[in-house]
Every structure is written in C-alpha cells, then in structure tokens.
C-alpha cells in the first residue's frame, strides 16, 4: 500500500479525534461516514493515550531548555502515559468488581470504552495545548509560573474529559441508572489515586536549579499529608 496522502492522513486524524469525542463513533453525519469514523479498538485507544500523552509530556519537559537538560523531555514524555495508564491499572480491579456487583457486568466493555475515551480526550486536549505551553515557556516565565500554566492546562483537559465521560455514559445511564453511581465511583477512585501518582512521579516540569532526574531523589511521600501540612502551617 502506498503512503497515505496528506489529505487522507488528516482525515484519519480527524476520525481518530472524533472517536474520542462526545458523540463517539456513533455520529452519523456525512463527514463521519465519509471518513469512516468507527469504533476504536481498546488497543488503538491505549495507543492514542500513550502517543498523545507523550507528545504533551515532551513539550512540558522543554522548560528552561538547554541541551544538557534534554533528558527531561524524554522523562516527561514517559511520565504522562505512565501516570494515566498506571492509575487506570490500580483502579481497574475495583471498577470491575463494583460494576459486577451492581449487576451491570455485561455493560463493562462499554463502560471501559467510555472511561478510556475520556482519557483519550484528556490526552488529545493536552497534546492540542502543547504549543501553548511551549509558547508560554519561550516568554521567559519562571518555574513557578510554568507550573501554574501546566496546572491550568491539566484542569482544562480534566474538564474536557469529564464532559466526554458524561456524554459517553449517557446511554448507559439511560439504560440503567446505577451507572451514575458507578461513574461517580470511578471518578472518585481515579482522582484519589491520580493525585498521589502524580505526586510520586514528580518532577514533570524540571526546576532549573535542580539536577535532571527521572524521579525526585528523596523517598516517596504521601501527597495528601503533604497538602494537609501545607494548609495547616499557614
């Protein structure tokens, strides 16, 4: 098969993004049928999450770039997919058993697809905003502001992911209202674990004053206790 023309490649990308959008692959517009938007396999979804997450991570790691610090780009590119995939793996057994106990095990495939689609939406939003973060870096902001920018972008991507999750769950909820509770359970578990996972995987935006490392040199600590101490000390 010959290489795809740029136009076709763009259509494919478009189809990919639509597949993790709020309508999902079911959208039956002219455009969708023309580009054959169809359901992504779980493997493709995972591939999308890893690729898009790595793209953003690489850009995130360019803060205060100099050739000696280029490993930071690689580290952050690895850490964003690790953060998402590992958190999912930790929470998945509980989500599976809760779905089963709620009597909707037959919907688990759909629920998993909804959850992974939301994560896909999260990572493609991040990837789409990667140029923004690099632009902000080039304006010469300090480390604190760089962290703040990334925080805002993550918040934005989280909101997008929530919208997609709700939209994807709508049909499941219409069929059985217990899915509302299960979706809330997923969000709580995932959020609870993800905060700690992100805390352990620091630094994402390397502090120029510190040496380049994959993880912080100090032993792992608990994010929630650190936050509590921060709040109470002030």
């Amino acid at each position, binding site marked *: 098969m010959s290489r795809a023309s740029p136009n076709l490649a763009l259509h494919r990308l478009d189809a990919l993004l639509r597949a993790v959008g709020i309508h999902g692959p079911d959208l039956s517009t002219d455009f969708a049928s023309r580009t054959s938007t169809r359901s992504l396999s779980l493997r493709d979804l995972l591939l999308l999450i890893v690729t898009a997450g790595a793209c953003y991570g690489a850009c995130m790691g360019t803060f205060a770039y100099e050739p000696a610090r280029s490993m930071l780009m690689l580290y952050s590119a690895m850490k964003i997919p690790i953060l998402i995939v590992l958190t999912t*793996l*930790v*929470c998945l*057994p*509980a989500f*599976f*058993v*809760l779905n*089963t*106990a709620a*009597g909707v*095990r037959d919907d688990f495939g759909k629920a998993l697809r909804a959850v992974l689609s939301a994560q896909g939406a999260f990572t493609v939003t991040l990837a789409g905003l990667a140029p923004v973060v690099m632009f902000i870096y080039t304006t010469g902001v300090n480390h604190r502001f760089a962290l703040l920018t990334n925080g805002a972008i993550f918040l934005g991507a989280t909101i997008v992911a929530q919208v997609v999750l709700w939209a994807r769950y709508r049909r499941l909820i219409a069929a059985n209202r217990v899915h509302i509770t299960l979706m809330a359970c997923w969000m709580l*578990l995932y959020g*609870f*674990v993800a905060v*700690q*996972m992100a*805390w*352990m995987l620091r630094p994402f935006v390397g502090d120029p004053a510190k040496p380049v490392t994959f993880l912080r040199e100090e*032993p*792992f*600590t*608990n994010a*929630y*206790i650190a936050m*509590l*101490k921060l709040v*109470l000390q002030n």
Partner: protein
Amino acid sequence: MSAPSMPSWLANLDDLLRGKRTTRDRIAEGLVLPWQVHIPLVFLLGGAYGASAGCFALVRTWGGPNAADGVKQLLAAMLKVPALFILTLIVTFPSLYVFNALVGARLGFRATLELLLASLVVTLAVAASLGPILVFFTLSTESYAFMVLLNVVLLAIAGIVGLAFLLKTLRKIADAAAMAGDVEGASGDTIFRVWIIIYGLVGVQMAWILRPFVGHPAAPFGLFRDRQGSFFAGVIENLRQLVN
C-alpha cells in the same frame, strides 16, 4: 461469559457478584447459596485484602532488623480480616435469628445464615478489589495514621456494597413470596435494617480488639494490643496524628 476453563469456585463467585444466584426465578425455585463454597471464599478474599493491609508493615520494616516482624504482621493480617467478619457474624447472628423467629419471618435459620455469608463474600470481593489501591499507597506513604484511615474508608465502601446486596436480595425474596400469594410471613426487612446497625457496631469494635491490622512500623510485633479505648476514639486519634 463464564468460560468452561473457569474453576468452579471462581465461576461461583462470578455468578454471585453478577447477581445470577439471586435472580427472581432462582429465588422462586428456592435460594441456593452453598456455605461450603462461601466460607473458603471468605478466607481467600479476606486474606487477599489482609495481605494488602499487612503490606505496610512488610514494606516499612523491609531490610531492617525487624523484617521478621513485618512478615509476621502480613500473615497475621491475612488471618485477621476473615476472622473479623466471621467472628462478628457469630456474635450477632443469634440476635438476628431470634428477632426473625419472633416476627415469624420467612427465612429459616440456615437460609438466613447462608444469605449473610453470601453478603460477606460480596463485601470481601469488593474489599479485595480495592487492595491494589491500598498497596499503591503503601509504597509511598510513611504515615501510619493515613494507612489506618484509608483502611477504614475502603472497608466502609466494601461494607456498603455488601449491604446493598443483602437488602436487594431481601426485597426480591419478599417480592417472590408476594407473587406466590404468601402474605403471612414477614420479610424481616426492618429487622435486617436494625440488625445491620448492631452488626456494624459489633464489627468496628471487633476490628478494634483484633488490631493491629496495618501494624505500626516502630512497634514490635504482637498478635493483639491492650484492650483499651474504642474504635471511634481510635479514628479520632489517627485523624489528629495525621496532621502532626
């Protein structure tokens, strides 16, 4: 999707969790919840959760002079979690049985006991599935108080799911009886609700006397601690230590 290769105990657990054993049709035919299968499952799933809880002591003492204590704590926790649930059931079941008999409930001694055992299996299956989260936090947390509180929260979640299973099944039993034109027997719904409170109170206090589950990394291994204080005072004390 019960594949033929699935071992029978796993297929049994799967059916129970999916509610296949407690459908209206099954109940109308007569509920079968074999205790011979469910008691080993309580030990297996409770042991799995206990291992996740005991991991903290293992990880915190690993490579140190007290490493043997960590291993002992892990093994103790694996036994204590199933023991906690079974002992609580033994202590509280007689009262439930008496209440039920007094109001002339439909479920007999054995049927009630088997239903409660099945609820325990559901509870512990959820708890075991939350185990990876516990292990994950164990790897990164030094605070003993945080781990104790996380255990309380995760077991509470598991308990809520188990109780939902119990009440849902009771409702189906009442419905099935109503369909069969049996209006005499009481469903015992209210009694179960009151009993759940008793079970909960005995359960937390049982957990208190069986502690430590997590094992304080600085304390030498002991199967049990001094009997003083209460579960609720313990939770408040741990909350206080969280910020110190």
